[in-house]
């Protein structure tokens, strides 16, 4: 025991001294001068001279106040799969890189992904010290918001939390004192109105703390928040640029046209030509379609998947598929052409940026689809009213007319006149002759002699490639319209839809409107690929937890919990009346299509009749609305729905009115009437 205690109390410095003495005593005095000895013997009191260890010391002494942020490439953070082999290094450089990486790993452990390390090393040309500096600096920078000291002015901005991408931080959003002030940011809404619609208790669930507290608007808070909001907006944009800047633009195309114009076949063929469909599947379709005597439908089967659709040979619900062009990633939404499925077509068109109108060039077929109450007109009018301004017209089945130029011209002439009237600019409409079944002029330039003679324009794929991608409003508050609810794998359930505004991060809290329940985003996937963030314009499917699947249905809107989407039953709209059989009067029952929502509604008031071209008031309180007039009306919906004024959110500010299977009017919401 005594010995043990002795050891514990031993002074190590003495030991060293002893050692020194011991060594000294053994070696000959003359062999090693004290200065020589000091060169070899470690002394912690003396400044470091050993080269190898120098860098270690540097870390300790790195000035803490250094604040130069060097996070120029945060976008690559998430691409964990990036491999240094892809950097095209020769062997020597690769070796250097490896050794550098090993050393870095020794210092900082495994907390930082390889990508960042590689980037840093490459940036500083394999200089270990500098790259270490950079990594540590950027690390510290990204940590700053997390350990932000609690000062009276700085409030943890909930809207900023998602930007840091820390899943755990976002949830507390609602509990912070940050949210009353946010009312001030809701741009373009009267605060009072918004508050009242937001807090009107409609269901017991409504009385959840979130909307209630919205009411306690503090004026001083509002002022404080404005710069914060701007900051957030900036973040959204930069995040978008980081995430998507390098990728091809996403473009959503809805394919429309009269029933049997060959929409699905055209698209199926296009996908086959592009190699998106494997040879084996195609062979399978060919055999099976032959079996039921519908061989011409084999390409359509690529998109028509349910048995019902295949047996009947028509598309019933919107089919979707992806392909890539030179500059874009294109998602096609294959809309049904049959008059009975126009509600589905509206759902599809509501999600699209541009449209492809397919017309049948066969004699008699074009006329029946266009002149005699066919869907060509209605579809074109609908997509225009839904905000699609760019259109490609595929004059399909031109092989049946022996690629006749006269026929092509005849059709384009008719369509031009009509599309102009419908509100498409001539410059935004392109006409392409093609054939879906033979695959002529789809991907490759035409080979058919009859067509080459007179056509030298672009192929269908080129036209698609040339579409402009509309700007995505990523910086606005989140709005996502739900068009499908289904059970996914794992916990929770999935809602699919399009993000109209803003962005959505994994871990975000969202408000499910109009029931106003708070849900948490567990997972986001685009085209079955999981991502951490999705932006306006994307078609996503989001896994939600925190709400019951029963309480979410098609037509709902996921909204930012702070800047909520208005919920209303009554609103004012400016409508354009199409060709109608009976005039619209007060009390006219209509079906209202708003995004993917279909709800029955009444026109409760005819407010005024406007001049079609100038928009001037012609008559106040008209008795009825006839063909092709423009009017301001008030519409009341049976159940509360989420609407926005057109000037705030375009996509959520459009409505279609339909009666007895025909579209009678399209409208823009000008005002939301709080009841």
């Amino acid at each position, binding site marked *: 025991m005594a010995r043990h205690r002795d050891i514990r109390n031993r002074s190590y410095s003495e030991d060293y001294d002893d050692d020194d003495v011991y060594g000294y005593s053994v070696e000959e005095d003359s062999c090693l001068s004290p200065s020589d000895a000091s060169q070899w013997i470690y002394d912690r009191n003396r400044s470091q001279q050993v080269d190898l260890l120098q860098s270690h010391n540097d870390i300790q002494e790195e000035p803490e106040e250094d604040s130069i942020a060097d996070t120029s490439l945060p976008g690559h953070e998430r691409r964990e799969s990036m491999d240094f082999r892809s950097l095209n290094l020769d062997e020597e450089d690769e070796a250097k890189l490896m050794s550098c990486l090993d050393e870095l790993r020794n210092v900082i452990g495994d907390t930082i992904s390889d990508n960042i390390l590689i980037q840093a090393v490459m940036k500083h040309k394999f200089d270990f010290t500098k790259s270490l500096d950079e990594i540590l600096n950027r690390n510290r920078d990204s940590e700053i918001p997390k350990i932000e000291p609690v000062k009276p002015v700085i409030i943890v901005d909930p809207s900023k939390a998602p930007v840091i991408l820390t899943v755990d931080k976002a949830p507390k959003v609602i509990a912070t004192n940050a949210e009353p002030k946010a009312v001030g940011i809701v741009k373009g809404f009267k605060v009072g109105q918004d508050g009242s619609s937001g807090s009107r208790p409609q269901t017991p669930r409504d009385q959840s703390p979130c909307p209630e507290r919205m009411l306690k608007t503090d004026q001083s808070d509002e002022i404080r928040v404005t710069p914060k909001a701007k900051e957030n907006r900036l973040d959204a944009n930069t995040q978008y640029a980081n995430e998507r800047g390098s990728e091809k633009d996403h473009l959503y195309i809805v394919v429309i046209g009269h029933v049997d114009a060959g929409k699905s076949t055209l698209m199926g063929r296009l996908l086959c030509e592009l190699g998106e469909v494997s040879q084996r599947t195609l062979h399978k379709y060919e055999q099976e379609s032959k079996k039921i005597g519908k061989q011409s439908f084999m390409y359509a089967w690529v998109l028509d998947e349910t048995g019902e659709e295949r047996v009947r040979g028509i598309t019933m619900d919107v089919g979707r598929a992806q392909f890539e062009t030179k500059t874009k990633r294109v998602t096609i939404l294959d809309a049904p052409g049959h008059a009975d499925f126009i509600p589905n077509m509206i759902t599809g068109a509501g999600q699209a940026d541009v449209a492809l109108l397919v017309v049948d060039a066969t004699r008699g077929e074009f006329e029946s689809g266009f002149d005699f109450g066919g869907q060509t007109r209605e579809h074109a009018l609908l997509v225009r009213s839904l905000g699609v301004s760019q259109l490609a017209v595929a004059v399909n089945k031109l092989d049946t007319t022996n690629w006749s130029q006269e026929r092509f011209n005849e059709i384009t002439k008719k369509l031009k006149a009509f599309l102009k009237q419908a509100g498409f600019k001539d410059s935004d409409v392109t006409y392409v002759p093609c054939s879906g079944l033979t695959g002529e002029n789809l991907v490759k330039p035409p080979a058919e002699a009859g067509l080459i003679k007179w056509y030298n324009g672009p192929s269908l794929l080129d036209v698609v490639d040339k579409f402009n991608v509309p700007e995505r409003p990523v910086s606005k508050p989140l709005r996502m319209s739900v068009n499908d609810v289904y059970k996914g794998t794992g916990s929770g359930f999935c809602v699919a839809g399009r993000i109209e505004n803003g962005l959505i991060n994994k871990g975000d809290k969202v408000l499910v409107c109009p029931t106003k329940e708070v849900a948490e985003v567990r997972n986001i996937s685009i085209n079955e690929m999981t991502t951490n963030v999705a932006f306006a314009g994307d078609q996503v499917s989001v896994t939600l937890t925190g709400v019951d699947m029963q309480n979410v249905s*098609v037509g709902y809107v996921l909204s930012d919990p702070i800047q909520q989407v208005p919920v209303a039953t009554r609103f004012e709209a400016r409508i354009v009346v199409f060709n109608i059989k009976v005039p619209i009067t*007060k009390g006219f*029952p209509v079906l209202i299509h708003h995004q993917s929502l279909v709800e029955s509604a009444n026109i409760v008031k005819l407010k005024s009749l406007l001049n079609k071209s100038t928009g001037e008031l012609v008559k106040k*309180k008209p008795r009825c609305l006839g063909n092709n007039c423009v009017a301001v009306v008030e519409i009341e919906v049976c159940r509360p729905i989420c609407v926005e004024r057109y000037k705030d959110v375009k996509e959520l500010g459009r409505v279609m009115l339909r009666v007895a299977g025909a579209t009678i009017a399209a409208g823009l919401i000008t005002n939301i009437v709080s009841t």
Partner: protein
Amino acid sequence: MKLVHKNIERDGCGSIGLIPEEPEDMWHAYNLVAVADAVTASTVRKVQTESSTGSSTSSRVRTTLTITVETIDFDTQACVLRLKGRNIVENQYVKMGAYHTLDLELNRKFTLQKPLWDSVALERVDQACDPAANADVAAVVMQEGLAHVCLITPSMTLVRSKIDITIPRKRKGFVQQHDKGLTKFYEAVMQGILRHVDFSIVKCVIIASPGFVKDQFFEYMMQQAVKTDNKLLIDNKGKFLLVKASSGFKHSLKEVLQEPAVMAKISDTKAASEVKLLESFYTMLQLEPAKAFYGKKHIERANDAQAIEILMISDKLFRCQDIQQRKDYVAIVDSVRDNGGEVRIFSSMHVSGEQLDQLTGIAAILRFPMPELEDSDADGESDSDSD
């Protein structure tokens, strides 16, 4: 409804005794009874008696009471009419002036005493007692995910059940979820039909939908019927009628009722003729706007010119609390009749009546165009519109 006795004086006051026989009769009664009328009916009242020793006992007694009506409640789903008012006839259990609520019961006589039986009320009694006019039709309007099971009686359209199920869309690799959702939906609709449709009463069951939903559903239902050996469905297979409708919402019933195949089956029901009439009004409004008018002011002026050929008026207007207003409307009806015009009183329980209600409740097709009405009083119209 059975008419037991009718006692009406020269000046229009008097009493009528009626026995309601089916739920629909309650609707007629609801339209007959107005505030301030006196109603005599048998009812159950809880009576407290105090004995000489001071202990009190309460017992329920059946007694006949007469009350002056103050409030009228009609439950459309259960078809129950509830009248609240003060007792006006001395009774051994109930004091004068005590409040009581009468539940009118089926197959029990009630007596209605009115200060004034006007033509509309008397017509209603006749209509209610007409035994020929009862033909019930069941209709199911549906679309994928939404269905309404309705019962159409001569003067009412009752939504018996609304089925609203979210069906997942078809998506790559998830087609079975769509099919599963669809099967669940069809099952729910079928249960709705089995529960709410009495096949011994209804003439036919209309299944209406856009697209192929109706065919798929019918096929499913018959398959299930065979599988579960449901005699009821198999025996009544011939009663089903598949027609096209544009959507699964209630007001697409209007389209259904205009379908020629349906018209042939239910031609004598009021619902179909009302829809047809309203449609002709709208057509007139489109073709000759100067011959179709709505709104009380316009109608009054057209009536002054004896121009009204067909007057459409919702029975809701006669149920209003304001006696003066009711008198006005009755006056219009009488004068149109006197001038040789036709008057149709729409039931506000039908889809067409609902639409007419929204359209101020009164509309007319004229014999000759009156363009001056259209132009002259744009301001006068705004008054009537503002309510």
